């Protein structure tokens, strides 16, 4: 329709042309938008005359002008420009987009704010530039290194895995060994979304946020301090991430299409001793250590054994170059009627490991209607997505011994020795939100919104145990529903001489329900059925349900005088169903002040100072926990055991309830974890915004962190929850952005940010007694929480080398007994010499000392953006410094049990210094598989390494095709690009990748290496 109008206008212009030619001094020029794209049908003419025309299909206009005429040029969706004609030869007029006016505002909780008046610590990332040339499973990984104080680590290279995001330091203690993360709250277009299911209900391993197509995101705002986040109350203590999706903009319809294909290369893998070398190493271990009467398996000695000469490269077989494809397209537009935005995307990320991959299908439609002369604005957003992650079931492992034949080897072909199995994880999400904004009277806006979110996770797996040949099938279905109803009233008058006020009053009610249905079967005979079938009459599955609701009232008052002095405060009251009646409501206040000192008279005339602001804030926000009924004292009816027997449920056919021994008993006093945060910050812009400097200092005290404390076994209960630990995070954040354009053609933008964070436990219950977490590998190995030390701090056994001679093993002079090793093992020469810190001649948990901090001290990122003519080069780096990590992956490979032969691949022992005989100056103790006490444990101070790294995450080379060429084929804008992802890492760590580490600092051997990707793409705008 629009084109027809444009064409008609053009025809009209052409017809009019002969008439105009009669006049003198005919000038030709062009009208473009700010990116240089031509505008067809723009109105241009001489001010206060009737001498007007429109641009033709190539963006050109012809006008009769004389020097001194003022040209007026206008176009829908763009600011009207006025230019005085001064006899320039080429009269190109650039129109600035209207939408730009909104750029001065930044999205904050329940509204937006003019950037100049912001008093909290808020960072904004424009996603367009990033998503255009990069591809990722989820948007979080694209934010890595972009925001000072937001530490994002990709802990696994597995497609669809979840990165960890920690804003301003860790403030979460986990139960048991697992490392827990203080998760931020995610809000999409004003609606908090389901970002994670609690462990009990988490049946798929996929990142819940990976279903959001990064290309749909316009910008991401990170609320870091309490004054910004406290308006989200009980869930904001770990920061809030506000996501705004792309909307249509005024002007011509924005049609864009982006297609890219990446090749994933296998990075450096584990070192493996193959074939002969493995055989030699095994026989060496047998020679050195095998007890009398134990001889090597025939695989190593009998040359007629078909496996004798085998040398399988399992890593080479299972890791292969793979392909990632990503397509997205969208149509967006806006006008007086409102706006529309429709987008679709598909991603297929094949993993480098056999049988793994991640797929995403997503579509999103958003429309706004302006009714009653803009008195009412109605927004509707519908987003539907599916992700499908397939995982390796582990029946085929990259860690198999090289002596085992590959599945395609002639010896085993057809024998189905290695059943591949199946593990699929499908997540669906439907998000619908509808809101109506009523402009009741001038400056008074009422908004009501209702949103419904539905997620479904389906996990189906089939695995065949090679040992028992039993097949196990599980099939689970998880559904979550989230209902949110919000009402807000905003009154924002401006009065007098630059006084502006903004008052927000709101209410929200939210309910999240989750239901899980799961069935599983174990059948004795191998079956290839991927569905659960019941071999006997006991066809029982299990289902589970949990629900929580929150009711909130909140308000915020902001006052600014001439954008010079700002003061604001917010107050939120949250009631949650998770707490007992006594502790049901929590109050979360915050205050903040700001001073735009650059606007003071003193700085008048100092042109170099564009902007300068000092901010300060203080506030309280909270976090809750995932177990909805914890405070109520949940009872347990028992569950089916692994054979679907009712032994844990009923006795003599009568079923009953017992306490759930892990969650303690009813505790009405359980309440919010409260986080007090103070922040001081400064924003300075210098030299016409060429240099921008942001500095923040904060202190975050998280009080009453929910902690499990083990109870004496005689109580019957394992643990009880308490609001117990207090954790302090202090930090500094620096951001420097520069924008250098030496000549018109060359532009160089840099963004450097780095943040320092120190984490410390400041209080624990029971007189600050250490809390030793239970560990799957026994009491001696749990993590320790201690006051004064950081969370997850390493409390390790202090290595003093290796016992070289018998007499080095200490003997208790009183009893004559030798030092007892870890887990009461008898120590021998060649074992690790741990220091007996308390001198009781027993190495146990009491001998552990603080040995390192896995929380990074410094994190940050450095972005460089070069453009020269139509070429662009963008390099993003991230770094972490001052972090300690443990090379657990290698330790696990060096731990051998009695039946070690032929079970797993071995590293090449020549590359490691391993103790064999007295006098060996070795790092690793003896590998004696028959010795109980080899003491190769992860909690050994010897293996702590420096986890610092500097990573060039992506480098993108792009080229904007010339508009001339494009206009012929009807394309407005096109860019071709090549991106290298995970380009290079500089690290001191001896393991494969210092980033693929759990947040508590262990390189767990389940690690999936991070692929290197070379991505080619083309992005078109019509």
């Amino acid at each position, binding site marked *: 329709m629009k084109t027809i109008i444009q064409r008609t206008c053009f025809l009209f212009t052409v017809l009019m042309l002969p008439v105009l030619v009669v006049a003198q001094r005919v000038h030709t020029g062009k009208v473009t938008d700010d990116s240089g794209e031509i505008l067809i049908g723009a109105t241009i003419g001489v001010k206060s005359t009737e001498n007007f025309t429109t641009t033709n299909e190539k963006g050109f206009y012809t006008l009769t002008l004389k020097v001194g005429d003022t040209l007026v040029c206008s176009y829908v969706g763009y600011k009207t420009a006025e230019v005085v004609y001064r006899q320039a030869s080429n009269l190109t007029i650039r129109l600035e987009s209207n939408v730009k006016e909104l750029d001065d505002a930044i999205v904050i909780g329940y509204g937006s704010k003019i950037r100049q008046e912001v008093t909290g610590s808020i960072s904004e990332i424009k996603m367009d530039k990033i998503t255009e040339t990069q591809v990722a499973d989820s948007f979080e990984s694209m934010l890595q290194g972009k925001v000072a104080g937001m530490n994002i680590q990709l802990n696994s290279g597995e497609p669809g895995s979840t990165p960890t995001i920690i804003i301003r330091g860790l403030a979460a203690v986990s139960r048991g060994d697992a490392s827990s993360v203080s998760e931020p709250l995610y809000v999409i277009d004003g609606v908090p979304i389901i970002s994670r299911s609690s462990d009990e209900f988490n049946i798929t391993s996929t990142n819940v946020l990976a279903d959001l197509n990064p290309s749909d995101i316009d910008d991401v705002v990170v609320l870091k301090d309490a004054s910004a986040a406290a308006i989200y109350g009980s869930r904001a203590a770990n920061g809030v991430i506000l996501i705004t999706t792309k909307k249509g903009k005024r002007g011509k319809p924005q049609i864009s299409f982006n297609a890219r294909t990446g090749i994933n290369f296998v990075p450096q893998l584990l070192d493996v001793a193959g074939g002969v070398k493995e055989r030699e190493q095994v026989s060496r271990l047998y020679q050195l250590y095998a007890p009398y009467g134990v001889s090597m398996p025939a695989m190593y000695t009998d040359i007629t054994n078909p496996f004798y000469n085998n040398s399988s490269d399992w890593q080479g077989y299972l890791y292969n170059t793979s392909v990632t494809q990503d397509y997205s397209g969208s149509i967006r537009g806006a006008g007086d009627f409102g706006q529309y935005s429709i987008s679709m995307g598909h991603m297929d990320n094949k993993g480098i490991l056999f049988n793994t991959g991640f797929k995403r299908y997503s579509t999103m439609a958003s429309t706004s209607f302006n009714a009653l002369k803009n008195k009412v604005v109605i927004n509707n957003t519908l987003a539907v997505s599916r992700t499908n992650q397939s995982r390796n079931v582990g029946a085929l492992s990259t860690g198999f011994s090289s002596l085992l034949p590959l599945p395609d080897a002639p010896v085993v072909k057809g024998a189905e020795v290695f059943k591949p199995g199946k593990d699929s994880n499908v997540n669906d999400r439907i998000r619908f939100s509808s809101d109506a904004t009523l402009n009741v009277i001038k400056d008074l806006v009422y908004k009501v919104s209702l949103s419904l979110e539905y997620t479904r996770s389906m996990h189906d797996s089939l695995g065949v145990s090679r040992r028992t040949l039993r097949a196990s099938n599980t099939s689970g279905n998880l559904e979550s529903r989230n209902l949110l109803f919000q009402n807000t009233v905003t009154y924002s008058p401006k009065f007098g001489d630059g006084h502006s006020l903004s008052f927000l009053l709101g209410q929200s009610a939210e309910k999240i329900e989750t239901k899980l249905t799961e069935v599983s079967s174990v059948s*004795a005979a191998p079956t290839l059925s991927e569905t659960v079938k019941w071999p006997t009459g006991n066809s029982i599955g299990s289902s589970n*349900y949990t629900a929580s609701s929150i009711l909130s009232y909140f308000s915020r008052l902001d006052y600014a005088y001439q954008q010079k002095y700002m003061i604001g405060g917010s107050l939120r009251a949250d009631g949650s169903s998770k707490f007992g009646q006594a502790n049901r409501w929590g109050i979360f206040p915050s205050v903040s002040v700001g001073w735009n000192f650059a606007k003071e008279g003193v700085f008048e005339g100092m042109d170099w100072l564009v902007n300068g602001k000092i901010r300060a804030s203080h506030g309280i926000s909270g976090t809750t926990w995932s177990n909805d009924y914890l405070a*109520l004292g949940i009872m*347990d009816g028992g569950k089916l055991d692994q054979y679907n*027997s009712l032994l844990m449920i009923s006795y003599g056919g009568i079923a009953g309830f017992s306490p759930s021994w892990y969650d303690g008993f009813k505790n009405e006093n359980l309440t919010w974890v409260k986080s007090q945060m103070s922040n001081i910050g400064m924003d300075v812009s210098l030299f016409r915004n060429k240099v921008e400097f942001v500095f923040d200092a904060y202190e975050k005290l998280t009080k009453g962190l929910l902690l499990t*404390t083990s109870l*004496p076994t*005689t109580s019957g*209960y394992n643990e009880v929850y308490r609001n117990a630990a207090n954790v302090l995070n202090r930090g500094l954040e620096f951001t420097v952005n520069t924008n250098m354009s030496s000549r018109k053609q060359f532009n160089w933008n840099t963004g450097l940010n780095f943040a320092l964070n120190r984490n410390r436990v400041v209080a624990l219950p029971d007189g600050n007694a250490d809390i030793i977490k239970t560990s799957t590998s026994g009491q001696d190995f749990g993590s320790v929480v201690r006051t004064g030390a950081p969370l997850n701090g390493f409390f390790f056994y202090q290595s003093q080398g290796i016992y070289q001679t018998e007499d080095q093993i200490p003997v208790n002079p009183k009893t004559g*007994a030798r030092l007892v090793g870890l887990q009461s093992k008898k120590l021998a020469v060649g074992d690790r010499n741990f220091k007996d810190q308390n001198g009781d001649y027993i190495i146990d948990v009491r001998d552990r000392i603080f040995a390192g901090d896995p929380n990074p001290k410094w994190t940050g990122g450095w972005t460089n953006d070069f453009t020269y003519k139509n070429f662009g080069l963008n390099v993003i780096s991230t770094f972490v410094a001052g972090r300690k990590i443990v090379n657990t992956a290698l330790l696990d490979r060096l731990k051998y049990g009695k039946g070690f032969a032929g079970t797993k691949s071995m590293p090449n022992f020549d590359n490691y210094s391993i103790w064999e005989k007295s006098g060996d100056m070795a790092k690793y103790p003896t590998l004696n598989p028959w010795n109980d006490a080899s003491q190769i444990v992860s909690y050994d101070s010897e293996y702590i390494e420096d986890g610092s790294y500097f990573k060039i995450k992506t480098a993108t080379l792009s080229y904007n095709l010339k508009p001339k060429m494009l206009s012929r084929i009807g394309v407005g804008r096109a860019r071709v690009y090549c991106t290298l992802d995970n380009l290079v890492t500089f690290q001191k760590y001896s393991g494969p990748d210092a980033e693929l580490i759990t947040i508590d600092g262990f390189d767990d051997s389940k690690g999936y290496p991070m692929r290197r990707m070379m991505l080619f793409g083309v992005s078109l705008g019509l």
Partner: protein
Amino acid sequence: MRNKIFITCLTSLMFVSQGCKDWLDELPINTVTEDQAWKSGSDAEGAVAKAFAIFRRALAGLTKADTPSTTRNGAWGDYYFWGDMRSGDWITPNNDGDWQAGFENRLISRTELEPMTNWRLFYRAIEQCNLVLENVPNITEGFTAERKAQLLAEAHFMRAMAHFYAARIWGDIPINLTARNVQPLGREPLADVMRMVVAEADEAIAVLPWLYDGTRKKSTSRGTKGAALALKAHALMWLKDYQGASDAIKQIIDEGKFSLAPIEGFRDMFDKGETNEMVFQMFYDASIGEFSDYYGHIMTYYLTNPYTDRGNLSLAVPRSRILQIYPDYARDQSDKRVAEFFQSIDFSVGENELRPILADPIANGERLIMFAKFRKAKDRTYNLMDGPVPIFRYAELLLLKAEADARLSNLNESLANLNLVRARAGIPLFEKADQPLLIEEILEERRRELIGEFQRVYDLVRLGRLHEFNSSVSEKDEKDGAGFFPVSDEAFANNPNMTQTYYWQFNQ
């Protein structure tokens, strides 16, 4: 127009405040909360049954589902390892290192044996009873006063039973008689524990019925007067109150509800638990879904093909030892129990077929005789194992009374009960009215009758005679507490009052 908008706003706000009244009351629908758990008679029924279910699991053994400090995937049938493993009668034909360490009383060195040193599940059963005794008295609906009293008596019984069983394993143990007791409890002397058991049993005896409606198995797997009397008698034996023990068992005998099953009834007794001889047993029944599989039942380890998928023997009594324990069988094959308790398999038949059972129970070699007191269907699987776990049996109580009477010098009384058991086995009656000889013979008879029935080690430890039968334990060791299991590391966590058994402080 403006008015319309205003009204819309107002009504929606009203709607919100109306709907919000109960908005924050979320209660689970998949389970109940503590406040909801103690409302009616059926809640009480369920809670008491749960205490028995927890105790059944405690006997089968701790797994990693119960505490993360163990790595064991499934229970092994720990009642065997506590009650029989160290009796000196057992071998491991397939040279299992863990079993061997257990035979030799090396209970700390093997991490695989560690779960057996952890008493957590016993205290869970105790806590469940404490909760019942705290909450059920307040329940008034849904059951008769009589039933309520019975359930409370059962809780007393089970609380005593769990303490008693744990005390036999660990010796001195903490006593916990209050709900939600998170205090760090220290260990109480064994005698104090047994006195508490007697007191608790007395409370139960006064109220509990002799039998409930329903099958014998169902009835005798719950707390009954007979079971409580048997418990009391056992506890008194540890206290050396032989008269009390004898009197308690006499009450059981006099009631006449229990009798010795004929030899032909052994399969019903040991495979199904359906017999008049069982006084207290743990309930298992595959037909209502309460069964074990590979894990959870000791049959997994001593049965082989044709009963299970096992190709070799893992736990067995050697042939020479069988002949030594059953001298009458060695002499003239008169002891009918041998054929009931042992079988020889034709190992010449392939592993993939049902191996036939030879007619002669001890036809096989020294290390190849299968212990088969408890059996299951011959289907070469571990599926649906539901053999009973006897705790008190009439024959066992007769022998216990015989011992008490013998020690009280009531030799005729003693001989009569001993000979009831001997007569059933088809062996000659014992006639020597000589106290020391008689006591010795009763102990031997208990060994014969109760082999593999989780009693032998407790008998030996009670009498301080483990060192006579287990060469790995010296007399001094036993005095130092080597007969008891060590206390697990986990019991010391957050408990400064916990102490290790003297012997185990020095013998790692």
